[in-house]
């Protein structure tokens, strides 16, 4: 089980959170100008990263804030959590083993 560092509440157990998928996907400024392909790309297309991944989490049973987490999708190592609008923490250099 993961221990996730809520930027407000600190380390809490995974069961208090909800997963929100890939982070930093900007909504198009003017959706009406997009064709179906570009709109579908925004709505549905996500990276399938093997390695460090920026993703959104919601502290649904705690303070009910959305925030971002950098997590390794293979090892589950969590590098850091940061509030919406903040810069992501520096990624560690991939060590031997997990990349």
């Amino acid at each position, binding site marked *: 089980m993961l221990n996730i560092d809520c930027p407000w*509440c*600190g380390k809490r*157990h995974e069961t*208090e959170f909800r997963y929100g998928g890939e982070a930093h996907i900007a909504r198009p400024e003017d959706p009406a100008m997009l064709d179906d392909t570009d709109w579908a790309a925004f709505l549905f297309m996500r990276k399938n990263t093997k390695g460090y991944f920026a993703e959104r989490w919601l502290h649904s*049973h705690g303070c*009910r*804030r959305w925030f971002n987490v950098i997590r390794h999708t293979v090892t589950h190592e969590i590098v850091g959590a940061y509030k919406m609008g903040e810069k992501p923490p520096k990624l560690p250099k991939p060590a031997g083993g997990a990349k």
Partner: protein
Amino acid sequence: MAKNSPWITPAAAIARDFPAGLTELSPRAQVNLRGILDESSFMTAVKTATGIDLPITPNKVATGKDHKALWLSPDEWLLIGEGEADALVHRLENALTGQHVAINDVSANRTIFELSGPHGHHVLMKSSEFDFHPRVFAPGDCVQTLIAKSQAIVEQVGEDAFHIYVRSSFSRYVGAWLAEALAEYGAPA
């Protein structure tokens, strides 16, 4: 009908048989307050209305003369006092007129269990994944977490006493859970 004729929660059906150390408290005034922390006029007005400096440190409780405030999120607090919520709601509304706030009487939302005695934190530790060990959770702390998989607010009100705020509709289940969790420790000596 008297407005505050005590609400009967589902837990009332089993509360009579609770072991020593567990009780369901009579209803309290509970007001949910939301506002913008960065606006000093907000903090000042709340202080005027309640005498409380709202806690800005997450998961802390600030206590005033008649009320206390539990931190719930960066822009949200739960104010608690004795009796009915009307007077508190009106005082807040008057003090905060024109500000971007939300003031809601949520007294009927959650019932409050009091867990007391030397095994209170043991009961919580086996009911939750949150760490209720005294080295991390102490009087003046509150936490929103899961108790027996139900959403709850837990506040430590004394060295050996906790208040557990549970949605009324979950109260019979959580009450029964707490009663059973406490039972193994037997009656306090």
